[in-house]
């Protein structure tokens, strides 16, 4: 009886909305809100990548590149560093459209590759884009730049002065509002003709095409969509942190994002957010722990353990999850095939 209530779609939707609404009230401090916003932004990228990897079975090790491309485009166009200076409600759509289009163009050649080759190919794309960020004229080189205008819900004056919403609440509302919408989109895609086509391609491209599915077209579509998600995350990043640096969008970031997909990536889209939160929180927990140790007189730098912990958890999760190694693995690879060649 209770189970039936819990499974009810409407209840789920309402609880989700409640959760999103309550979180900022619980975690009021600006530090906590920053963490939540970071989780939100990366969840958006991970949602997109989840469609590409979990649903359609492709891989992209360069997705931070699209994230960064969109961030850089809107930042450059609106920060007054180029001869052109555009208001953000113009620079944002331009950035998103250009980045999505770039993903679309790249999709055609790169998705001819499969497996390892696709991984390497997308890795190379990530490197190319990263080099672009570093060498962009007026882009500030390795240090990037700041001075990018903030995105306010109803414009700065109205939101901040009249409604009294500070920049963190503002960021939270925007990011999570968009996250919820994209979450809804993702759920809709999964249970649609297109979603089924993606899943079919994941398992057997030959069977899929024998049923009339244009495999190339659908691969391009899913790649473009995931690029679109990354592009949205990119503009949110730029206009919340009000600056960009190349290292936010490098290879390490791409690999971290893939890690988030895998760790949380399960057959339910919510898994994507879980994995993201998990990994991002680790960094902050380490920082917190480090401060604690400092106060007790032990001063070691725990931040260096960051990557190590990532890798460690990554492998542990893959190998030994409590639900059984079959458990999470199967839940992620519920969308995947067992190796079966013709």
């Amino acid at each position: 009886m209770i189970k039936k209530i819990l499974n009810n779609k409407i209840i789920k939707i309402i609880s989700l909305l409640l959760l999103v609404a309550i979180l900022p009230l619980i975690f009021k401090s600006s530090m906590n809100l920053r963490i939540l916003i970071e989780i939100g932004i990366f969840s958006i990228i991970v949602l997109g990548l989840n469609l590409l990897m979990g649903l359609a079975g492709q891989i992209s090790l360069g997705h931070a590149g699209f994230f960064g491309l969109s961030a850089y485009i809107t930042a450059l166009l609106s920060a007054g560093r180029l001869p052109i200076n555009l208001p953000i409600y113009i620079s944002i759509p331009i950035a998103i459209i250009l980045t999505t289009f770039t993903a679309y163009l790249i999709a055609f050649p790169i998705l001819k590759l499969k497996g390892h080759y696709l991984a390497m190919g997308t890795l190379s794309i990530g490197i190319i884009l990263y080099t672009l960020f570093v060498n962009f004229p007026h882009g500030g080189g390795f240090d990037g730049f700041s001075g990018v205008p903030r995105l306010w819900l109803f414009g700065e004056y109205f939101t901040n002065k009249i409604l009294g919403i500070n920049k963190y609440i503002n960021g939270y509302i925007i990011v999570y509002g968009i996250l919820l919408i994209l979450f809804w989109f993702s759920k809709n895609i999964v249970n649609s003709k297109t979603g089924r086509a993606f899943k079919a391609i994941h398992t057997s491209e030959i069977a899929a095409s024998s049923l009339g599915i244009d495999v190339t077209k659908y691969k391009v579509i899913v790649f473009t969509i995931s690029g679109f998600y990354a592009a949205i995350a990119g503009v949110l990043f730029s206009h919340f942190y009000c600056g960009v640096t190349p290292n936010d969008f490098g290879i390490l970031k791409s690999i971290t994002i893939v890690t988030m997909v895998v760790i949380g990536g399960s057959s339910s889209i919510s898994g994507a957010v879980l994995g993201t939160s998990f990994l991002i929180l680790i960094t902050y927990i380490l920082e917190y722990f480090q401060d604690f140790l400092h106060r007790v007189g032990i001063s070691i730098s725990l931040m260096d353990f960051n990557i190590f912990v990532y890798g460690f958890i990554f492998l542990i999760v893959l190998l030994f999850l409590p639900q059984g190694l079959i458990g999470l693995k199967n839940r992620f690879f519920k969308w995947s095939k067992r190796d079966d060649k013709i």
Partner: protein
Amino acid sequence: MSDFLQYCLTGISVGMIYALIASGFSLIYRVTNVINFAQGEFIMLGGMLMILFNHFLKWNIFLSVILVLIIVVLVAFLLEELTLKPFKNDDVLIKIIFTIGASILIRGISMVVFWKEPGLRYESFFTDQNFKILGASITLQDIFIISVSIIIFVLLFIFMEKTITGKAMRATAINLKASKIIGINVNLTLKLSFILSGLLGAIAGIIITPKLGMSYDSGIFWGIKGFTAAILGGLDSGVSVIFGGLLLGLLEAFITGYGANISFGLFKSEYRDVVICAILIIFLILKPNGILSKRSDRV
């Protein structure tokens, strides 16, 4: 003219390193069909451990080399044992993700265990001595790198072609099931492929560090270069990857060298990485079996 020769020599020297790394990729790929994303970390470990033993702890150089090789071989062994063996029958995607995870882990451990300053080196026998050939200068270290690489390749060739174990590995590479049936210890060959790859990587790391230094995060950098070389030469042949390595080394040397004089567009040396990556992508799509192969389908 002396410029040209200079670039050639530089290119060949670093090209040999790429060839060593590429051989590591090729070896594991041919036997297991997996591309070991952690390959670059073997090079990094080789270099960093050498610096640790020889430069910081001031141990004897020969002792250090032996220790480094043992440690890296152990890491390679563990890599196969813990990550690839349990998932032997699974999706290629899982295996890729595993080697990625392993490389993250190795890099993470290195960051903690080693130091963060980039580009440190250790003193090799040969560091400063210079030779001039027809106007181009070449260091003794370069000559050392080239000679050691050649010796390694010859040894590898003899091992793969002439010894029973080597032939067993090649058989496993060609047909795993059949090899099992005729009694080849397939598990051993799988482990061996990793161990040899680890050795190749470690040696590459050891001989290149006095010249170019090593950092805890150099792994990916070397891995990508080695992989590109492997693709250029052809992943499925142990011999052509060597050509791939040399080709890549020469390409890079020429682009950096001549590019420095061109101050615009694609040939700026910062864009060298872009050009190399673009070449990699083009090859992956059009000629995944290498520049020498006539086929354009995937193996």
